[in-house]
């Protein structure tokens, strides 16, 4: 198996493909965090008064909080006063009227990433709200969506043009007091995406955002809010890559989803931020709060994610199942290689009657990677007839990685049904040998076995994402099996 081990290692050792830095002048606030910085940030964004007040409330809450330490991850202390909380590409001071006016350097960056920003978008049928550092630089398909009454814009624009919706729903799923990182985000979030799908409208295309962290030492604090009104449905794709970096970068995003009666939201993520080098140096700290609220009857929220990047991932996309018969789903593949650490999972909180949830989590650990699944299923007293099915599988590649499972179950209603299955397997020499005996190379065998392991999750991804996900998975594990 010596050769198999070498190949996994070679896979693992592949350099981060998207590690390049774009030289664009940035218009930044000085490093550090205080009420003055927040006021200046809010002023730069020309925000209405309620926004500034909300930010300040969050900030005052945040200074009383301490950073959580319960996650199964290790990292040096973060100096929050050494972070730049606002940076916008300077060329945006005067908003471009079309993509032609966008900084060509920036466009080239997207092209390097293979992001279809122009004609490709039409071909791909994807509307892109691209977030470059802190300001949205280009939004497309907006008019077509507008005809259907769908609002899809940057968060900043939503604050300007749809303040009532923002006021009504911002913090309604993740309150500004929620947790250390979410509270920080509430105080300083720079931009993000906003989507509102009106009653009875099915969004005809996949909505997509590409996030990219760029300016050095700039914390990236996205805020995303998606609302599906009664009978509406929307599928949202979030995918990201980041340039190579020496110093660790903090990323603390918040995503809030609200589904009203009979509404459906599908939120898919492919996360490929810089994971650090082979020794674990550098890489993104990804501390994200994602939560959906199935507020209405028969509503449904699905989270599907492939997490291959970041030095540290701390992320638990969750569902609050309030409406009767509402459904929450979580499908996840998390990969850790080299010295990556992931503590990820979900929370399914059953509140309404006959609510159902499904959790399928696949953790893959290679190299020295540590992968933890942390999940909570909570059935409240009111949740008669609630059902949950959880399945958590771990795959180990090599003998220096780790997989951990922390399932929490809290059942307060005797009519509930809760099932939990968990497996841990090592990618078997027998499996690899079997493939090789049939003529399949070692590397292809590993990729085939790993993709097979993830199949239940990948089939939940939208088509174009599924292909990308498979490729990304192969790249992430390159060299990790010998």
């Amino acid at each position, binding site marked *: *198996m*010596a*050769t198999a081990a070498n190949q996994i290692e070679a896979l693992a050792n592949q350099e981060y493909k998207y590690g390049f830095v774009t030289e664009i002048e940035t218009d930044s606030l000085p490093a550090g965090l205080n009420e003055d910085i927040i006021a200046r940030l809010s002023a730069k964004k020309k925000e209405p008064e309620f926004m500034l007040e909300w930010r300040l409330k969050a900030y005052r809450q945040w200074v009383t909080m301490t950073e959580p330490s319960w996650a199964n991850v290790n990292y040096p202390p973060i100096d929050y006063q050494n972070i730049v909380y606002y940076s916008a590409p300077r060329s945006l001071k005067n908003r471009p009227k079309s993509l032609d006016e966008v900084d060509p350097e920036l466009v080239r960056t997207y092209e390097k990433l293979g992001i279809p920003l122009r004609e490709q978008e039409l071909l791909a049928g994807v509307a892109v709200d691209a977030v470059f550092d802190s300001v949205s630089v280009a939004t497309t398909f907006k008019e077509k969506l507008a005809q259907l009454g769908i609002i899809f814009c940057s968060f900043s624009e939503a604050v300007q043009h749809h303040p009532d919706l923002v006021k009504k729903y911002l913090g309604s799923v993740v309150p500004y007091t929620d947790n250390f990182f979410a509270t920080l985000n509430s105080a300083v979030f720079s931009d993000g995406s906003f989507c509102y799908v009106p009653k009875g409208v099915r969004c005809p295309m996949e909505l997509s955002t590409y996030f990219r962290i760029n300016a050095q030492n700039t914390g990236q604090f996205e805020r995303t809010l998606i609302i599906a009104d009664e009978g509406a449905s929307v599928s949202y794709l979030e995918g990201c890559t980041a340039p190579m970096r020496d110093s660790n970068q903090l990323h603390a995003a918040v995503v809030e989803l609200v589904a009203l009666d009979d509404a459906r939201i599908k939120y898919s993520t492919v996360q490929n931020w810089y994971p650090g080098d082979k020794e674990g140096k550098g890489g993104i700290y990804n501390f994200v709060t994602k939560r959906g609220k199935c507020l209405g009857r028969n509503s449904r929220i699905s989270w599907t994610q492939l997490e291959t990047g970041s030095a540290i991932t701390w992320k638990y996309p969750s569902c609050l199942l309030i409406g009767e018969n509402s459904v929450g789903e979580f499908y996840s593949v998390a990969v850790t290689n080299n010295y990556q650490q992931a503590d990820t999972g979900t929370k399914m909180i059953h509140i309404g009657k006959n609510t159902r949830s499904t959790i399928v989590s696949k953790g893959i650990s290679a190299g020295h990677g540590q992968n933890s699944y942390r999940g909570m299923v909570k059935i409240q007293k009111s949740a008669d007839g609630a059902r949950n099915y959880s399945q958590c599988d771990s795959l180990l590649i090599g003998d220096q990685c780790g997989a951990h499972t922390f399932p929490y179950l809290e059942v307060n209603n005797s009519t509930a049904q809760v099932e939990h299955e968990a497996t841990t397997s090592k990618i*078997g*020499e*027998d*499996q690899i*040998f*079997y*493939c*090789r*005996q*049939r*003529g*399949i*190379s*070692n590397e*292809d065998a590993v990729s*085939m*076995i790993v*993709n*097979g*392991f*993830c*199949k*239940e999750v990948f089939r939940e991804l939208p088509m174009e994402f599924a292909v990308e996900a498979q490729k990304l998975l192969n790249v992430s594990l390159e060299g990790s099996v010998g």
Partner: protein
Amino acid sequence: MLSIRNLHANVGDKEILKGIDLEVKAGQVHAVMGPNGSGKSTLAGVLAGRELFEVTAGEVLFEGKNLLEMKPEERARLGLFMAFQYPVEIPGVSNMYFLRAALNAIRKERGEEELDAVDFMQLVQEKTRVLEVGENLLSRPVNVGFSGGEKKRNEIFQMAVLEPRLAILDETDSGLDIDALKAVAAGVNAMRSPERAMVLVTHYQRLLNYIVPDFVHVMYDGRIIRSGGKELALELEETGYAGLEETVAAQ
């Protein structure tokens, strides 16, 4: 086609094969019999390239090439196929996908064009008719949830699709009821041809009632102690392996 000379192999520090000589020509079917622990399956594993076994001496030529220098996948692409005693499960990977990847790897090596899903499907449908393999077997993940009989049948089906030059069947009869045994044997017999050689590794004579070998070799304690025609298998059936120790002592 296959020429084994003075082959010695270890598992850890223990010597399992203690000097094997065997000559297999195209068109021949050889049966290698012997009691448990005699080294039959080790021989099959060494030929297929399992890294668990360390070859300490001897040489093996396959199609004139040094087999022992090749990786398992290189051997497979050259036309060596092993039907596994315990076929391995690969969850989430459909039998069809697996087999097409295998066939295309082999075709690529031969400089042939790779088959797309449609062409492959046609090829497979022919084979399923001959082997009476249910098509639902094809869409299921490789060996997952298969009965013992289905697994063995699947091995023979794979062999039929990959059309190897040399097929090594490792205890293919173990765990089969008589109907499954007959079906598997029919599949193997259909594959016999003047261009193809087969080595059947088996504990029992039973299989050889259905796949009649040209040669029978008896292994004991890491060596081939007797070779003969198909009648040797019948003789063993009567005397059992118990008499072998005396044979060895007499030698």
